């Protein structure tokens, strides 16, 4: 409460100051820090983004750009809390299945047209339209929007989607079932508005810099594929007066070590730190090396389907293998980027998630190893009858190091014979997706800040459940959580079941490990989804 009052006071104060003194004076309106003359933020991206079309984009780098170019109904603040975006707010009916959003009067597209409820209706229908076949159509289904599932399946016409423009500034959304975290999902790029006129005029090339019209704080001004994309301040943006960064440049640099070199040479304001280099960089540049928790997990999944090895059908075997993994070695020696060890599938940083007291977490590694040996012996494996299986991961230096370390731990502690196999990404996906593996690497980053974005992967019919784990109790709990007002205890119970049955071996939860120029102000380190908005950043004078 106290915090809310303080925040709103600060907000009130800052808006007063802004109207009084202009930002051009060169100091930050809230903090009073001196601002740099050149407000350009340059950062590295690993790969060319797939698209900047909100309904088409499917990769993280693309979504970051889309979040600057377009604005959805709601935004996130530095801590990941929901704040108004293109909508000033929303109301929900008593049965919690009809949401009504009120759009901002002053919200405009970069061509000066007002942003209307119709733009959202158009975009959302577009997202589920089989004709566009968006790779993120499933997200609309996940949002429980009425008829989304049957429209995607081609069983109903697109017009029957449960979304309606009551008038230009009022958007009504009907859900097929109450979904407590629905408003959070409106910060996802798939739900951002789309300019119908422009899309109809230019077709697939509407996202080129010369054609694109957007409603976010920035517009796309330059794009040289595989090299750079540049976005600059959108003068029509409703909150343009409070935006400080003028220009954002994303440079494609495939090689992370080159990126680090170019960062060191002052060409970049932000880049990722390669695995294992954080301790050194943190020592040499303590103000620039950052590490903070992120909403992603890293795990190995057992193939418990019919095509999987017989041994993995025994929960004792699975648990023994999980116990024997010394996570501290992985996080401290191999990754060394400040990643938290994982004993649950859902990262601790997830909003509203209470980490259950998993027995394994409170044991010492020696105790875990002891128990692992007992469990494995109980399952009938030992020196005379050693357990052996194959472990697959996609080709990557860090994945390899971790797999080698883990397989060594199993060999030394339990006498388990592991054969390592790496595969190129698409081959890996194909093999894992068709259950042609014994044990496979997996990782997932949350699509929204709620435990179900992770736990859904362990639901028996999830498209991502490659190990084919199947537990009716887990399915029931997850279904119940979808409509529950307080899903936290349900998630905790799911985690408890998972800890017992061990269909997966959680290894660690991700950390955002960056080199960030100390001139960059307000990077949202507390936003675990790392949903950052350039409009909230600024560059300090040196």
């Amino acid at each position, binding site marked *: 409460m106290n915090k809310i009052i303080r925040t709103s006071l600060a907000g009130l104060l800052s808006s007063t100051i802004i109207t009084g003194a202009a930002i051009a004076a060169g100091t930050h309106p809230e903090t009073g820090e001196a601002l740099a003359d050149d407000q350009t933020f340059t950062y590295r991206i690993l790969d*060319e983004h797939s698209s900047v079309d909100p309904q088409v984009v499917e990769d993280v780098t693309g979504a970051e750009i889309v979040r600057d170019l377009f604005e959805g109904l709601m935004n996130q603040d530095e801590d990941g809390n929901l704040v108004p975006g293109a909508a000033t707010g929303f109301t929900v009916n008593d049965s919690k299945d009809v949401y009504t959003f009120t759009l901002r009067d002053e919200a405009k597209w970069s061509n000066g047209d007002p942003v209307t409820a119709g733009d959202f209706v158009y975009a959302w229908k577009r997202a589920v339209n089989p004709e566009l*076949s968006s790779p993120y159509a*499933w997200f609309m289904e996940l949002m429980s929007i009425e008829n989304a599932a049957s429209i995607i399946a081609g069983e109903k016409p697109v017009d029957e989607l449960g979304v309606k423009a009551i008038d230009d500034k009022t958007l009504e959304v009907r859900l097929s079932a109450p979904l407590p975290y629905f408003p959070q999902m409106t910060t996802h790029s798939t739900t951002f508005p789309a300019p119908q006129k422009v899309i109809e005029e230019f077709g697939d090339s509407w996202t080129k810099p010369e054609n694109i019209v957007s409603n976010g704080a920035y517009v796309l001004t330059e794009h040289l*594929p595989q090299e750079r994309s540049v976005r600059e301040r959108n003068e029509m943006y409703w909150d343009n007066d409070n935006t400080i960064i003028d220009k954002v440049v994303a440079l494609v640099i495939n090689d992370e070590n080159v990126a680090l070199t170019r960062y060191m*040479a002052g060409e970049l304001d932000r880049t990722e730190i390669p695995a294992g280099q954080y301790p050194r960089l943190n020592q040499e540049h303590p103000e620039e090396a950052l590490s903070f928790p992120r909403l992603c997990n890293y795990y190995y999944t057992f193939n418990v389907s019919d095509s999987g090895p017989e041994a993995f059908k025994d929960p004792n075997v699975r648990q023994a293998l999980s116990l024997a993994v010394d996570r501290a070695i992985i996080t401290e020696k191999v990754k060394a980027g400040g990643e938290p060890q994982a004993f649950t599938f859902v990262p601790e940083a997830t909003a509203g998630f209470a980490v259950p007291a998993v027995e394994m977490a409170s044991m010492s590694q020696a105790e875990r190893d002891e128990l692992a040996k007992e469990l494995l012996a109980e399952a009938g494996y030992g020196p005379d009858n050693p357990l052996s299986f194959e472990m697959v991961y996609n080709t990557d230096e860090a994945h390899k190091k971790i797999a080698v370390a883990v397989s060594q731990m199993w060999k030394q502690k339990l006498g388990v014979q592991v054969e390592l196999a790496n595969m190129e990404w698409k081959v890996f996906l194909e093999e894992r997706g068709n259950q042609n593996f014994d044990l496979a690497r997996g990782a997932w980053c949350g699509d929204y800040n709620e435990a179900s974005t992770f736990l859904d992967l362990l639901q028996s019919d999830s498209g991502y459940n490659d190990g084919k784990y199947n537990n009716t109790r887990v399915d029931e709990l997850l279904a119940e959580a979808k409509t529950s007002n307080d899903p936290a205890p349900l998630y905790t119970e799911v985690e408890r079941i998972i800890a017992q049955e061990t269909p997966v071996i959680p290894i660690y939860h991700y950390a955002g490990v960056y080199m960030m120029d100390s001139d960059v102000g307000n990077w949202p380190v507390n936003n675990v989804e790392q949903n950052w908005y350039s409009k909230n950043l600024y560059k300090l004078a040196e």
Partner: protein
Amino acid sequence: MLAYSLRRLLVAIPTILLLIVACFFLMHVAPGGPFTSERALPPQVLANIEARYGLDQPLWKQLWDYLYNIVVHFDFGPSFKFKDRDVNDIIAQGFPISLTYGSLSFLLATAVGVSLGIAAAIKHNSWIDYIAVGLGIAAQALPNFIMGPILILTFTLWLGWLPGGGWNGGQWQYLIMPVIALATSYMGSIARITRSSMLEVLNSNFIRTARAKGLPTRTVIWRHALKPTLLPVVSYLGPVFVYVLTGSVFVDIYFSTGGLGQAYVGSALSRDYAVLLGVTILYGALTVVVNLLTDLAYAWFDPKIRY
């Protein structure tokens, strides 16, 4: 010569066709497809997408449509990964960049390599020869993936003279490191070939005759020795030109040039069939044309060769 060229180009057509067919089937044999993703797409969504790109058709039909569009419309199809670009766009944007780097590297490697080789041969067994041979061998031992990091550490990180990558409209500062990285090892080979070829020519009878009739050394070398010396060099330069273009893959990726190399590797990894095929065809056609040009160049260097 015209008839010969036409004949060669006609032979090139089935060659390239064979390349397309082989590449097409190999690509489809590789596990995973353009729309294989981490979260398995619902079958109906996948079906929609595949229908949109014609991937639901039998393979022979896909191949036929593909060839038909190339021959009739010169359309290499859409990119499966980048919705707002088709293959023609990607090539039109990336190829000029790769061509710039490739041509500059080729010129640099040839000019420096040939000069070093000639200098070494003329001053055979002198300190100039030793230095030139030493440099040549050192250069040959430095392929682009070694030169890249060395250059970037030296000129970007330590000296801070040059930007560590990017294209920036082809500004000269951005060209230097990629061009050197790409040229170095070929420069070494060219120097070596030129030197041994020149030594052989200088020991031949017609050079002895030229010297005997009292021509100054400069005339002997420029008018009589140079052309025959370059014959083996030219036969090496043809493939080198293709190598610097296709071999720019590493340089494109390492220096983030925005050239075709990145698109090529990326398309293979993401199974962007159309882009992969399009670039392969481009490189294939280029190889055929350059080989033809090399053969035609022989005639100019050696009057004994006639087509």
